């Protein structure tokens, strides 16, 4: 299979619930080895989009293509090729972790003889060894979430869809889950929805921002995250100073003592600090500016307020 061909393609999909439009004319594509972060406030249409992407919810119009084939004309495609973690992990509390994962493997078409190895691999990848024999109903929130991820990957699907996997986790659990998502994204096509912007920056290659069911932004995270540096000085510096520094691409004043500085490709902040010190204008503070992803997201999320005003 060509790695550059999209594993999943949403082609102008839309979803209505009665007269209400949940998702409107949305087009997205995800390839193997690519992680797409889906951002949006509550009610933006993230869960509806993910459900359509994994065959749970039929779109009102448009097509969902899995490896080029219409998912809703060939629903059996989902069995082996899609792993889905809903917002609430779909666990059966009366089963042990191992029993449950074995059922999920069989449910997704893993051959009987290969189930044991598939379950062990999922347990190892999600670090579930210590709870493998425990009842799911007795697990902590963090482990339940990890079992939810394990059921989504136990059959080695081409596409993994995770709906807010880090919701309700403590910072340590969230960090571990982020590492797991990053690792999964290298070998699979992965879509993850979240409220947490740093998670997107850390795990995703590209980001799609949904608002009121409309795709308002879609682009690479790396490009969106380069917002330059913010330099704070103890005393005012002149604009001419920046022109003398070869690593600076652009500098704009934020106020008398603060500047937004963009570096040329290949330059780093250490070189900038060294050059400023050499020029006799050592900065009191130099920090990466708030990423434009956050700016973009907040601008989109806050657009209602602006429109209402």
């Amino acid at each position: 299979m060509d790695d550059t061909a999209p594993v999943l393609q949403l082609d102008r999909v839309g979803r209505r619930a009665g007269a209400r439009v949940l998702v409107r004319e949305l087009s997205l594509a995800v390839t193997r080895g690519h992680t797409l972060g889906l951002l949006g406030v509550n009610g933006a249409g993230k869960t509806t989009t993910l459900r359509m992407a994994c065959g749970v919810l039929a779109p009102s119009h448009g097509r969902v293509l899995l490896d080029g084939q219409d998912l809703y004309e060939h629903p059996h495609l989902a069995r082996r090729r899609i792993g889905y973690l809903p917002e609430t992990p779909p666990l059966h509390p009366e089963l042990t972790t191992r029993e449950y994962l074995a059922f999920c493997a069989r449910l997704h078409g893993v051959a009987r003889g290969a189930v044991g190895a598939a379950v062990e691999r999922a347990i190892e990848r999600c670090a579930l060894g210590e709870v493998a024999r425990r009842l799911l109903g007795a697990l902590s929130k963090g482990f339940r979430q990890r079992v939810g991820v394990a059921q989504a990957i136990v059959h080695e699907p081409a596409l993994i869809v995770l709906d807010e996997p880090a919701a309700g986790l403590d910072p340590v659990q969230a960090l571990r889950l982020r590492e797991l998502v990053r690792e999964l994204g290298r070998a699979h096509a992965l879509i993850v929805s979240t409220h947490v912007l740093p998670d997107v920056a850390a795990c995703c290659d590209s980001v799609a921002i949904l608002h009121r069911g409309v795709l308002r932004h879609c682009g690479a995270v790396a490009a969106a995250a380069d917002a330059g540096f913010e330099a704070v000085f103890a005393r005012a510096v002149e604009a001419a100073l920046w022109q003398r520094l070869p690593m600076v691409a652009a500098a704009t004043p934020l106020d008398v003592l603060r500047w937004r500085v963009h570096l040329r490709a290949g330059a780093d902040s250490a070189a900038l600090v060294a050059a400023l010190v050499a020029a006799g204008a050592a900065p009191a503070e130099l920090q990466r500016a708030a990423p434009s992803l956050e700016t973009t997201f907040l601008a989109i999320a806050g657009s209602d307020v602006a429109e209402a005003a």
Partner: protein
Amino acid sequence: MSGIGLLARHEWRRLAAQPFAWILAAVVLALMSWQFLLALQAYLEISPRLGGLKDAPGVTDLVAVPLLHSLANVLAFVVPLLTMRMIAGERRAGTLPLLLASGLGNATLVLGKFLGALGYVLALIALIALLPLTLELGTTLDLGKLAATLLGLAAYAAALCAIGIACSAWAAQPALAAAAAIAVTGLLSVVDAGARMQGIGNAGINYLALPTHLQPFTRGIVSSVDLVYFLILATVALALAARRLDDLRASADL
């Protein structure tokens, strides 16, 4: 086909892991055992007088068949309690997307659930059938009549399971699903009561009633009409359940 078997086995495993299913089985078994002993005692008391009668009813007619007939009435309440969580419970616990995202068709999901429930109920019927069968050790049973009654009971149980699954698919709450299934079963049990009180026993309304088709089995009569009735009832109920899953897939309200 493998999907149906997988789901059915999974339902059995889940039932076996829940105290609810065991308690339900224990209560039914205790109730039926008590009734069996009472019927047996009554039979032993009147049996000396039966000896002088021509074509007198035997132990099969006076103990075994009434016991299984009584079990049919108990199943009208037990099966809805068993099936109420099969789909409504999955929706409530948020686990239905696991099945819907599995790529298995709605008919497969419904049939898997149905066979899971039916397997439990048939095991329960088999356990209770052992009670009258023990009488074979000391007396002679009409095994043909007993087999016919058990066959009818199995067909009746299949229809009840299908009704329970359909109600569980249509109701959002398990308790509501159980109430609906009990109501539907009750309605199908008494739908021809008025006609019977008027002395009408072979009208269209009689054909709709569950007892009309169960009673011939208890007399040892295995009729394809009665089997087809239970088959149609189960098929319609399961088709409605599958239709409901279709609606759920299209409704954004899982």
